[in-house]
């Protein structure tokens, strides 16, 4: 049952574009460090951030492809959602380290002078949790699908 949904097809195109942009940024980081435009620490943090985002979009694209094929409830998609969750958790951790001592006023939640959280921290955390919830939903859906297939 192949899906002809315009949303899924457009999402695939958008993800292709985003992956291209992120891939280009990652390559640019290597050029910048070679040219001495970035410090080693900046290079590593940017590479981890862009890499995690790239992985999240890459696995989301794989899920979208399976939706277009009409086979979304597969073991692989459960694995992909978990990997998206881990990639986003990595971003959440990085954002926490970056912002928990930042009291510049842009952070929405802070207890001065102990710690603060940036809005991005909550966004990444919420997305990571959503990815894990989606993995569980897909796991249950797969079980129901298997049960249905064995109902004669």
């Amino acid at each position, binding site marked *: 049952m192949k899906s002809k949904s315009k949303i899924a097809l457009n999402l695939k195109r958008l993800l292709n574009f985003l992956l291209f942009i992120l891939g280009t940024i990652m390559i640019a980081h290597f050029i910048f460090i070679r040219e001495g435009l970035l410090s080693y620490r900046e290079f590593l943090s940017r590479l981890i951030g862009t890499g995690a985002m790239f992985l999240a979009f890459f696995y989301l694209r794989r899920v979208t492809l399976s939706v277009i094929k009409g086979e979304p409830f597969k073991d692989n998609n459960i694995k992909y959602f978990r990997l998206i969750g881990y990639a986003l958790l990595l971003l959440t951790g990085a954002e926490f380290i970056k912002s928990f001592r930042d009291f510049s006023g842009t952070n929405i939640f802070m207890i001065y002078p102990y710690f603060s959280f940036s809005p991005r921290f909550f966004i990444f955390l919420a997305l990571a949790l959503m990815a894990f919830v989606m993995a569980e939903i897909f796991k249950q859906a797969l079980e129901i699908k298997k*049960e249905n297939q*064995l*109902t*004669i």
Partner: protein
Amino acid sequence: MSIKVNLDLVLVKRDMTLTELSERVGITISNLSILKNNKARAIRFSTLNAICRELQCQPGDILEYEEEKEDES
């Protein structure tokens, strides 16, 4: 599994093949094989109805409850 499917026995008694039954009830051979080999998790009333109609039997002739054996340790 405690519910056993005796479809093969009934088929032998009625001198009918699985292929013939599948054509008569409109269920694929692979699905009937799943049922015959006790791999099915559930059976629809419509399927049971069609099988009983074609094999001229009662649901009890096809399905049998078997006491589950407990491991003695």
